[in-house]
């Protein structure tokens, strides 16, 4: 377009000197007013013959930006790229990736009866937790050898941190050290919330009820439970590291019925990620959630307030408490259940205190 030359033919009786220059003077253009489009249309046909004689008309074929590259060159470039991304084993890696994509796209994968999708849990959930666990919270796990390598076990942990980040971090840490998937038991609120509910089931969670806990433990899963529930996770910052009531001891009854060991877990560091300094009970009631947290950063900084503070975490897995020594009917003995519950609670509280003593600073 740009190189088409405009050749004015006279002035067409309009004001101006008709010098043959490409553009009339500004004064003449102002005077010509509305007649301009007509003036522009006239030169175009004159330009065409010149273009035709100068060079052959350009076709879209010639103009295509990739025209000069043969398929072979494409393949070579693709191979170089693939080698750079996947390494020398790129063919198999790429084939595996394509197979993975195809499987996800066509739904040809399996989930277990709780809706646990191992691929989503391993490749999406736990993989995305890695930088947070390793760089942000710098989790230090102790006593991992107390987790059984196979068979059912119940991991009982303290709960804190306003949002259940400690649950996710426990899942990551256990998978990192033992390769096993922790199956968390969640409150029914988790399964009522959109997005959270589907992700929770795919990540391996199920509802915290006796039926599910016993079913999972009996089938040899590693089950995680946070008996303090919302009382623990939503407690004010001033009450940090003080264990709340341990529910009704349902988790102990489930362990007694299935005869699996209870592994107490104490997590230090999670209390400081979102220090809960206030609550809006009326709004919480309106939204149907247990509490609306106010932290030093939230809601004042908006979404930025959701970034957890980078506290240093310590996780200590305690000695397993055996339950297979009790006889069959012991789960129906409330006194025994309360005693074992207290024993677990005391163990966790004691190791929380000792971890806090060893900790020199919240941040490192």
């Amino acid at each position, binding site marked *: 377009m740009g190189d088409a030359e405009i050749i004015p033919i006279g002035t067409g009786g309009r004001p101006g000197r008709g010098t043959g220059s490409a553009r009339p003077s500004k004064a003449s253009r102002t005077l010509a007013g509305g007649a301009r489009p007509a003036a522009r249309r006239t030169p175009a046909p004159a330009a065409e013959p010149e273009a035709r004689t100068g060079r052959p008309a350009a076709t879209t074929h010639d103009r295509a930006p990739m025209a000069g590259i043969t398929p072979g060159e494409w*393949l070579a470039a693709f*191979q170089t790229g693939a080698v750079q991304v996947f390494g020398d084993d790129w*063919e*198999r890696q*790429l*084939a595996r990736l*394509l*197979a993975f*994509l*195809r499987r996800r*796209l*066509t*739904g*040809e*994968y*399996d*989930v*277990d*009866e*709780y*809706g646990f*999708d191992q691929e989503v849990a391993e490749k999406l959930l736990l993989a995305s937790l890695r930088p947070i666990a390793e760089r942000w919270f710098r989790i230090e796990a102790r006593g991992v050898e107390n987790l059984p390598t196979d068979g059912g076990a119940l991991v009982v942990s303290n709960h804190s941190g306003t949002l259940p980040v400690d649950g996710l971090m426990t899942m990551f840490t256990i998978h990192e050290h033992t390769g096993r998937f922790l199956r968390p038991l969640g409150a*029914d*609120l988790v*399964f*009522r*919330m*959109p*997005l*959270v*509910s*589907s992700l929770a*089931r*795919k990540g391996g969670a*199920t*509802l915290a*009820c006796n*039926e*599910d806990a016993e*079913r999972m433990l009996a089938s040899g899963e590693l089950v995680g439970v946070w008996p303090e529930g919302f009382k623990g996770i939503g407690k004010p910052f001033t009450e940090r590291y003080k264990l709340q009531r341990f529910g009704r001891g349902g988790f102990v009854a489930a362990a007694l019925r299935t005869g699996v060991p209870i592994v107490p877990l104490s997590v230090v560091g999670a209390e400081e990620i979102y220090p809960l300094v206030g609550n809006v009970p009326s709004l919480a009631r309106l939204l149907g959630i247990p509490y609306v947290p106010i932290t030093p950063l939230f809601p004042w900084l908006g979404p930025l307030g959701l970034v957890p503070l980078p506290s240093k975490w310590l996780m200590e897995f305690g000695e397993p408490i055996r339950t297979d020594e009790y006889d069959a009917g012991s789960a129906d003995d409330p006194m025994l259940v309360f005693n074992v519950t207290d024993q677990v609670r005391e163990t966790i509280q004691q190791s929380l205190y000792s971890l806090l003593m060893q900790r020199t600073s919240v941040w490192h």
Partner: protein
Amino acid sequence: MDADTKVVLVTGVSRDLGRRFARRLADEPGVARVVGVDAVPPRGDIGDVSFVRADIRNPVIAKVIAKEDVDTVVHMSVIATPGSAGGRGTMKELNVIGTMQLLAACQKSRSIRHLVVKSTSTVYGASSRDPAMFTEDMQPRRQPSSGYAKDVAEIEGYVRGFARRRPDVRVTTLRLANVLGPHVTSPITSYFRLPVIPTVLGFDPRLQFVHETDLMRVLTHCVHTDVPGTFNVAGDGVMLLSQAVRRLRKPTVPLVRPAVGGVAAVLKSARMADFSPEQLGFLTFGRGIDTSRMRAELGFEPVLTTEQAFADFASSTGRSASPVERVLDGLSSTLPGRATSGAGRG
């Protein structure tokens, strides 16, 4: 029971599954005669089944049972949608009053030895507080207040009452997961046959299916066996709705939960699908039923798993590979090292 002496009464033979079951049962060894009963005549071929046009909502049914000397009753006429019946009122009357009349007739009859009731896993409801897998002893977390789920809960209540009053009659109740098959028309199959599938945003329910041939097999098994009780029946395994839709190669429209009701009403008025409240709950929270009692006590093993039942259904919907899938297939088949790496490994 002696050989070839069973006289079986099957209710609800006007519908496809009932008709085909009655036909199949008539060819079974050990079954002398099959009497099919319904208010309207069956549309297809019923073979050796003798059809009696009788409405189970009135006492005529007692005369049929007495005249034909029936010893086994298979009750299949509980309907899930008002669509075919005319309205919710008629549906409820057919389901509840029909069952009451049938049970009253059975109670009067001296010849009845066995009652098989086809119930549904809908009795367990669907909510966020559900355990992952329901066993037969569990109750729904919320009692259903209306619709099909309430009908079924009431029907099961009457069946339990009957079992108490006639302890000499073996009563077998089957709580079936959603039945799928190329010929099945039900709320769930019409849902999966929609061109674009509406889902509830942020929820991915767990589903279980049982294939229509397994339904036929388990009902036949119950006619022959003498195990009373209530049993969950479902194919092995669980599928997520997202998985099912992907296997159908169909697009989805995730809708926020309050909007689904409106879409459901539109689809219902267009007669494309029928979303009842209990189905909406099912498609939000899903449900799993435990089938260990079916195996251990009833001694029945479904041939097809949930996935296989769904695959058979999906192949009947005329699905085709999506463009992305074709691209992926093309890419992986043109990978130069594919054949050699396979050979190197092998």
